[in-house]
């Protein structure tokens, strides 16, 4: 037995997307509440119907107990969070489907709330503890083996993986630029996007280098906001306001020795220059009875542009090491590419709400209501991570299998 087609996403909601710090004086709970209320309203449900929360990272900006109390959720029957960080974005909907297909809950909310006014993820592994030092993460015995080299932000760490990908496969900065530029093209067609100006190849190559081979435009935005989705039983989904986006399959995790990934750098050689998604992709496709050629739109977690390239490989849209030429061919462009990617503008150009915008876009693509709609979209892929495990994938479909 799997969770295939037992549940469907029926509601999506969000706050506006803000540049970092601009959501003040709203509290994180307030942002979360607004997104959840919008999502249940979108579904044609009310908060009285909600009985579960399936989360990832620090999705609520606080604890379920206070949130349920403040919003007046009648009875909480399921509340859980995937371990790890942003890698759980797509997987949190899989967690909701697991709760629903097991009968523990019937109407489960997944969400992400982000307010970067006080904390900046860019330096999230910077050591603390030295008097006078700027800090973010508490130092750990394992972190001691990378921080003294000056590796203190995810972008620097993913740059090291990218350098290896360049070395092994001949990937070039032009390939990263194509990810950044195609994503921007999608973003500027949407009112909700933070970035509204086109990005040219000249802009890209004139941008300052941050951590080679990555420049400014290879990095995602820093944002505030909240995005929520509501998942319920496939049965109940049929009678609600919008066509259901069925959860065909979801998987999360990764190979054990992928482990902490960028914060230990000891991943096995054969998957070092990868997104760590390969085992997750395999299990997800097996559960779905679908393969990469069935996917109509891919919403790939894009905190850093090279990780879109590596996910294209790990999800089987091209061969390992072939993502550079694949994107160079125009394949990921909307609307004419063979596999439109990040039609919403992604973390890079629309908004960075740690991947939840990708889930929202997958739902809208399945409904047929996306701003940059892929014609005849039947199967949408959303992913979370790369990050420390778990990373995650989610396949939403218009029809049941």
């Amino acid at each position: 037995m799997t969770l295939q087609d037992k549940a469907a996403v029926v509601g999506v909601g969000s706050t506006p997307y803000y540049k970092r710090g601009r959501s003040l004086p709203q509290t994180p709970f307030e942002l979360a509440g607004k997104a959840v209320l919008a999502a249940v309203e979108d579904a044609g449900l009310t908060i009285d119907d909600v009985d579960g929360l399936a989360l990832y990272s620090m999705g609520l900006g606080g604890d379920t107990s206070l949130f349920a109390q403040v919003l007046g959720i009648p009875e909480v029957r399921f509340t859980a969070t995937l371990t790890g960080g942003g890698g759980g974005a797509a997987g949190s909907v899989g967690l909701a489907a697991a709760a629903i297909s097991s009968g523990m809950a019937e109407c489960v909310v997944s969400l992400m709330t982000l307010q970067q006014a006080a904390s900046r993820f860019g330096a999230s592994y910077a050591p603390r503890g030295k008097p006078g030092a700027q800090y973010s993460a508490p130092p750990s015995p394992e972190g001691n083996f990378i921080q003294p080299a000056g590796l203190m932000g995810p972008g620097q760490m993913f740059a090291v993986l990218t350098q290896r990908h360049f070395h092994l496969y001949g990937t070039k900065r032009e390939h990263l630029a194509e990810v950044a530029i195609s994503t921007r093209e999608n973003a500027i067609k949407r009112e909700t996007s933070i970035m509204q100006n086109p990005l040219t190849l000249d802009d890209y190559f004139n941008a300052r280098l941050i951590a080679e081979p990555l420049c400014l435009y290879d990095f995602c935005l820093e944002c505030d906001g909240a995005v929520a989705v509501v998942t319920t039983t496939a049965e109940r989904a049929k009678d609600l306001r919008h066509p259901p986006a069925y959860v065909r399959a979801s998987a999360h995790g990764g190979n054990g020795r992928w482990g902490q990934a960028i914060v230990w750098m000891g991943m096995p050689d054969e998957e070092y220059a990868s997104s760590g998604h390969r085992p997750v992709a395999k299990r997800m496709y097996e559960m779905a009875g679908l393969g990469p050629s069935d996917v109509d739109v891919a919403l790939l977690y894009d905190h850093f542009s090279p990780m879109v390239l590596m996910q294209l490989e790990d999800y089987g849209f091209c061969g390992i090491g072939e993502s550079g030429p694949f994107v160079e061919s125009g394949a990921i462009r909307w609307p004419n590419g063979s596999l439109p990617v990040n039609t919403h503008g992604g973390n890079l150009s629309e908004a960075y709400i740690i991947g939840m915008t990708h889930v929202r876009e997958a739902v809208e693509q399945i409904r047929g209501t996306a701003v940059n709609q892929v014609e005849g979209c039947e199967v949408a892929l959303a992913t979370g991570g790369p990050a420390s495990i778990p990373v995650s994938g989610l396949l939403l479909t218009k029809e049941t299998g």
Partner: protein
Amino acid sequence: MSTAYDADQVAKLPDERIISLTPDVWTQPFWDAAAHHRLVVPRCTACGTFRLPPSAFCWKCRAQEIEWVEHDGRGAVYSFTIVWHPLLPDVADSVPYVPAVVELPNTNACRLVGAMVDTRLSDMRIGLNVELVWRDVEGGVAVPTWRPAEGE
């Protein structure tokens, strides 16, 4: 990559204010040896598998007992980045610095991360042979850094 460097531009070291060690019982011997400028890598006494960072279990056979094996600190760059943007004010005067992941021969491919010293940016490449140089920092602590091996 297409970036051209000033031929003589040399990697800096990240300011030592970012260095703060918090060893546990498994990593302490590594840092004790480091303070004496010795590189030691823990090896499982049951199956012979090396592991870095030092940890409570052998990931291959799950045994716990280890022996500390001396290593000459020679290896090759597995990957690296050149950091141009200082994430913290503490390192504002330290860029560009170059964190490098180095694979240690004869350790079943354990990797050790350190910043490059005495290295021209234009010489950085994967496969560069390097040797370990201990960097003494405040508090009687030393951390690994790398420089190109002779002949490179």
